[in-house]
């Protein structure tokens, strides 16, 4: 699969990541090369093979639904770019 400029722009939008205009062609060719590497997988016969989602084939451990964490809101918000009254601030979303 070879990607062109518009593919890269689409993917970057999905990833919410601004790209430098002058770099888009370079990304298109680099990402196409990586996909060419990945496409070697097509040669593998995987019919009837279970997908492996956990290296130890373990199930996700569950815990009781109870509060375990202490309230550390202040410490956690002290490192935020912008907060007010315990809320994270972002540019206005609703007019």
């Amino acid at each position: 699969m070879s990607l062109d400029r518009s593919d890269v722009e689409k993917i970057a939008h999905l990833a919410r990541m601004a790209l430098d205009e002058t770099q888009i062609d370079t990304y298109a060719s680099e990402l196409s090369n990586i996909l060419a590497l990945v496409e070697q997988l097509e040669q593998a016969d995987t019919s009837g093979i279970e997908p492996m989602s956990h290296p130890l084939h373990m199930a996700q451990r569950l815990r009781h639904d109870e509060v375990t964490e202490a309230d550390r809101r202040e410490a956690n918000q002290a490192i935020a770019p912008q907060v007010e009254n315990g809320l994270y601030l972002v540019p206005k979303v609703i007019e």
Partner: protein
Amino acid sequence: MHTKTIVELGAGLKAGEFTSVELTRHFLERIERYNGELNAFVTITPETALQEAEAADRLLQSGQAGPLTGIPIAQKDIFCTQGVKTSCGSRMLDNFISPYDAAVVERLKQAGIVSLGKLNMDEFAMGSSNETSFYGPVRNPWDRNRVPGGSSGGSAAAVAARIAVAATGTDTGGSIRQPAALCGLTGLKPTYGRVSRFGMIAFASSLDQAGPMAQSAEDAALLLQAISGFDSRDSTCANELVPDYSASLNDSLEGLRIGLPGEYFGEGLDSAIAASIEAAINVYKGLGAEVVEISLPNTALAVPTYYVVAPAECSSNLSRFDGVRFGYRCEDPKDLEDLYKRSRGEGFGAEVKRRIMIGTYALSAGYYDAYYLKAQQTRHLISDDFSKAFEKVDVIMGPTSPATAFGLGEKTDDPVTMYLNDIYTIAANLAGLPAMSLPVEPVNGLPVGLQIVGNYFAEGKLLNVAHRYQQETRWHRQMPEEYVL
């Protein structure tokens, strides 16, 4: 003092030959002298290091010291450290002061170590040369025109130059073993789930593991002992007994079955490295081990499988960096989308962007089956190869890396060429198996690593096998001449 291992320094501390404060000062002076030319440390913490050393000296005097008490090591900058910048090698986290400690950091503190600071790394652990760091490349102490490997390149360079006694690392596709090989260290990637990943910044969650990078298997055993074990805060952490890793170091290797996969000795392997590995295998034969030719037929699928699984998981994990709660935020965002896009576009470097985009693409509508599902199936094939092999052998050996350390800038133009450095290391992550690298005979004055892969939770066996070799040889005690004094 800096040419000594943890075990030797621990004995010196206990015997009162020197104090932890003296030892820590000595290493801080060495960092001052050498870090400029190596760029191994991103952050140096002399004040807290000396406080920890003083506390360690009090413990030593009261006779309550453990084997790691007062030993100055350093942490890869992927581990959160409370009150200390935790950058992950990225502009995105250049301003991030962690509000808590990672489990690994916490456990090493409890064991009494002194932390000298935080070590440089490839950005978000994505790289094999430590050239993707926001803080610039790390240089290999054996030849400063060469790379130290990656992503734990700062860890490897710091220990190789003995500006830290040992270091922590993380390994998603070879990031402990490959730099250990390129810098002449003993590095171990534990079984998936052996070590808690709480507070370790996530790259690819089904692959990431933390482990020690040290001067010897004996030292690695002490560090692994301290960081292993169950932690309820990491839902993937295994609830398995942690054996005494030091106790089995000297076990006999009589009758040990070593599997040599033909696929690891084929095309692409430097012939001088092959000879070096063969010489190491002969040492094992002398110790009573037997060699079995084996096959891991799906080896060629490992790199392509990894470059679906790892980017897919990274694109998901790194979505948390949005410029809202912590980390980098762009100037004057005009709306929320602009805030996300520019914060991420300006905060991430090129390699991280490439991987996020590959992952985003592989997981996007219409492509999931062709990429991610297919890669999970080939991952199963790779894992089954190992299960079959371990029916016949106890450990698998081969080279860690196809070549010795390459030149700075030599492989930065082509991401795919860079990816192929990890051709021998990636499979162990995909299968979740423990694996280590230890130094064998160098080639042209540059270190070479022997990789040993073991069965699940067989870290004790790996350390035993490595230690016995290190009893017979001195390669692990070699260090770059310039840094001996």
